[in-house]
């Protein structure tokens, strides 16, 4: 049970509300791991605990053998733990391609004074890679369009492209399918699968059950800050507690 990401008894309370109650889970490398649960189950909290936007009250987060619990968000990102956002968080003053270039700013080579001196050849390589990422996300023809002028669905995908530019080994997607048309959803499913095919692992928080069932290798169900069930999509679908707590009421 060694995974690329492990949570060991992670706990987080807001005032009296236990948003994460001794949550333990393990994400196996190279898989797409779903995180589902009813509203208020603590999915987003758990997401923020994994990426370091919140610090856990107790428990540990281990990423690829490194204990990242005390690390900042950006330090975790540089290790390859990168997230996207529920809201369309983008560098809205920049074009799509500039956004992707910006996405790599924090994780490009970090030699001394590299932030000051960059050879033209390095720059060309950066642009080339940004173009590839945009292409792979199906936004190749939108490179020069200002991020703010893209459609909602395109902005969502651009958010993923920005995260990809940071070179994630584990990509955390926060409700990526929200507000997308059926066609965009199909495209996104393919994009997510291609990301995995290139070697990254993925954790997915999502409400769209069809997409989750289609994509995920394993699913963890949360309820009231606790792990309710875990297993393959089929196991989870048939789990009586899950049906009672979640699917039954959904």
């Amino acid at each position: 049970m060694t995974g690329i990401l492990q949570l060991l008894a992670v706990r987080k309370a807001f005032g009296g509300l236990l948003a994460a109650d001794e949550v333990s889970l393990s994400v196996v490398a190279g898989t797409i791991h779903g995180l589902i649960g009813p509203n208020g189950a603590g999915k987003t909290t758990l997401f923020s605990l994994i990426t370091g936007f919140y610090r856990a009250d107790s428990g540990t987060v281990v990423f690829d053998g490194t204990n990242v619990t005390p690390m900042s968000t950006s330090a975790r990102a540089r290790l390859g733990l990168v997230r996207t956002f529920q809201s369309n968080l983008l560098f809205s003053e920049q074009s799509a391609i500039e956004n992707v270039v910006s996405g790599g700013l924090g994780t490009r080579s970090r030699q001394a004074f590299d932030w000051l001196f960059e050879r033209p050849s390095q720059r060309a390589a950066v642009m080339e890679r940004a173009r590839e990422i945009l292409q792979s996300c199906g936004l190749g023809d939108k490179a020069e369009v200002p991020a703010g002028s893209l459609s909602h669905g395109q902005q969502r995908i651009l958010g993923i492209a920005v995260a990809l530019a940071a070179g994630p080994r584990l990509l955390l997607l926060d409700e990526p399918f929200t507000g997308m048309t059926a066609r965009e959803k199909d495209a996104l499913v393919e994009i997510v699968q291609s990301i995995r095919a290139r070697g990254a692992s993925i954790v997915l928080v999502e409400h769209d059950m069809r997409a989750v069932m289609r994509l995920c290798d394993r699913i963890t169900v949360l309820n009231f800050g606790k792990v309710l069930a875990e297993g393959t999509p089929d196991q989870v679908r048939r789990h009586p507690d899950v049906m009672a707590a979640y699917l039954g009421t959904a």
Partner: protein
Amino acid sequence: MRPRSISTGVAIVLIAAAVLLPLVAGDYFTAFGTEIAITVLMLSSYRIIVLTGEWSFAHVVLQGVGAYTAAILVKDLGWPFPATLAAGAAMSALVAAILSYPLLRMKGFYFLMGSFAAAEAIRLLWRKIPFFGGTRGLSNIPAPYLELGGVSIDFGHTTNYFYLTLTVVICCLLLMWWMEQARIGGIWRAIQQQDVLAQSIGIESRTYRRLAFVIAAAFAGIAGVLLAYAFGSVTANRFSLNFALYLMIWSIVGGTRTFYGVVLGGVVLMVFDESLRFAEELRPGVYGLILIAVMLFFPQGLERLLAPIVGGPTKAPRRDVVPSTRSENA
């Protein structure tokens, strides 16, 4: 490439005009030209801080650190001009680095007030401690003098000092412009636009905000050294809150989005400022009205009016509060 070549053209015209200034204008306006050059350096270095999304009241006092450093070194130890220039920059950067530890834990209004408190405390210490000349400050700073292989230039002469200042300022501007094109400039912009997103892709925003604060201070220190020699004296009152306010106002009115915006804004505003000299007492009020009008009608600064001509971003930038990640989906 067209906008870029135009802004290069504008830059060349500006530099040419500056170089020709002493030939057509008298000493009074040449000395004024020196002041403009120093102000442009202050504004463009201030912009580095603004680029990371903060407004600081400490920048003018950091300029003062450079000025006092140069004054003391040249008067007490007889250091030559280039050495005082380097020392002034280094000292300002050092003070900024120390201040940045407490200050950069704050943001927005807290950072503004924190920077004010720290800066004002330093300024009051200058007034209090005899070593810094107390309220009278330090005066009789000897002008730089160059003696090299039979050629001697006395920079006490207004025109000569103007050219010296111009050279130093242009070098600094080129350095800053280059930095902004480099990766560090991109990182600063990313932090300003979306701090949360920047952190999520691995940018340690506090480190880079600190870097911006320190680098800006180094340039402010150079501006301070230039100022000390230009006036021949340094007083604490030259670095008071009023000057910090003016720096902020000019940045806002001129706009800080683009490099040329600050430079052009600085020149225009200094000339405007000078032309208001006949109504010295009413000047603050005029600035107040301009500031209010700009905030109400041109919240991105006057450079937006020029943007279509000289190039630069055409899309309205968003400076609204970052919608932080939703804390909990409850």
